[in-house]
């Protein structure tokens, strides 16, 4: 199991934070364009899911898998979007994202008085806590050492 990269968007589609670990392929476009493309794709998937769902969805879209990776999605009622790419065998990723929200995002970003909501997170404390959190998770595994 391993973790590739993480995007955090706010409800307006602003990329608040990006981090990567074992990513081996770049998309060939700038970070900014890649974020826009990702957000646009997720937006379409959400609308696709709500239309095609046979019952009233509650959480809606959870993840998709290709043959190489899985994209996991957590959206909070406040519209924050956590997007984590892992390999296809990773399990309990939803719980991991929930923890990341509660223990890293809320603790070190929301409580940071110097952070203005809606802006890119630059706090080094947050970045190091996030890195620590991801590396310690069982999903991160021991690949690429």
């Amino acid at each position, binding site marked *: 199991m391993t973790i*590739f*990269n993480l995007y955090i968007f706010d409800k307006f589609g602003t990329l608040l934070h990006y981090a*990567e670990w*074992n*990513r*081996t*392929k770049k*998309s060939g476009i700038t970070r900014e364009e*890649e974020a826009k*493309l*990702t957000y646009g*794709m997720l937006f*379409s*998937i959400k609308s*696709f*899911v*709500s*239309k*095609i*769902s*046979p*019952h*009233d*969805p*509650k*959480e*809606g*879209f*959870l*993840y*998709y*898998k*290709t*043959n*190489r*990776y899985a*994209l996991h999605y957590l959206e909070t009622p406040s519209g924050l979007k956590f997007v984590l*790419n892992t*390999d296809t065998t990773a399990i309990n990723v939803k719980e991991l994202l929930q923890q990341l929200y509660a223990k890293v995002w809320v603790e070190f970003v929301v409580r940071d008085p110097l952070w203005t909501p809606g802006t890119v997170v630059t706090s080094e404390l947050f970045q190091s806590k996030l890195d620590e959190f991801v590396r310690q998770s069982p999903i991160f595994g021991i690949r690429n050492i």
Partner: protein
Amino acid sequence: MIIYGVYIVSKSGGLIFNLDNNVPRIEHEKTFTYPLDLVLDYDSKKVSVSFNRKDGINVGHVLVAVNGMPVNGVTLDDGRDVRTTLDAPENYPINLKFSRPKMTTNEKIFLASMFYPLFAIASQLSPEPKSSGIEILEADTFTLHCFQTLTGIKFIIISETGLNGIDLLLRKVYELYSDYVLKNPFYSLEMPIRCELFDNKLQELLAQVEKTGISNIDK
């Protein structure tokens, strides 16, 4: 096992076949007194619930009938405007029927054409080299399995969540397609599939799967 639908998308992204299977009708009827405690959203095409869900009438459901009279968009069958009718206290108590919106054929074609670029973007955004497009998409209410043949045709099955072996079923649908569609000399490639034999065989297959599970499909 519940299979909700089968879709086939051609190489160029057009929806060439779809079958709805077991799609539940979600409708709720209730008599309301004034003032109406549902928050409704009136747009140009429909009246839908935007807040204050109640007794199964959920946010997103569309108004389909008032006192048994069908609603077409924002007007009643007899020409009265829905909003004026619901705003007038003398019309209460009033019976309203709501339904989860059903997809029209046009919407299905639109969704199929929407899935096509999503599939491609998912491959482009891959953090690992040589990724395929989306193979499984999971939501809390359904799972979508997609199988792309080497020739670029996509077979899509929408089912309940937590099922195993849908990939086998997709292969089987592919076989049926190559037997009863491609071998039919009157079928032209990329065109919508209108083959009765294929329809029947597919429905038989789905009925069998729902009864006895996927592992029992004859190989």
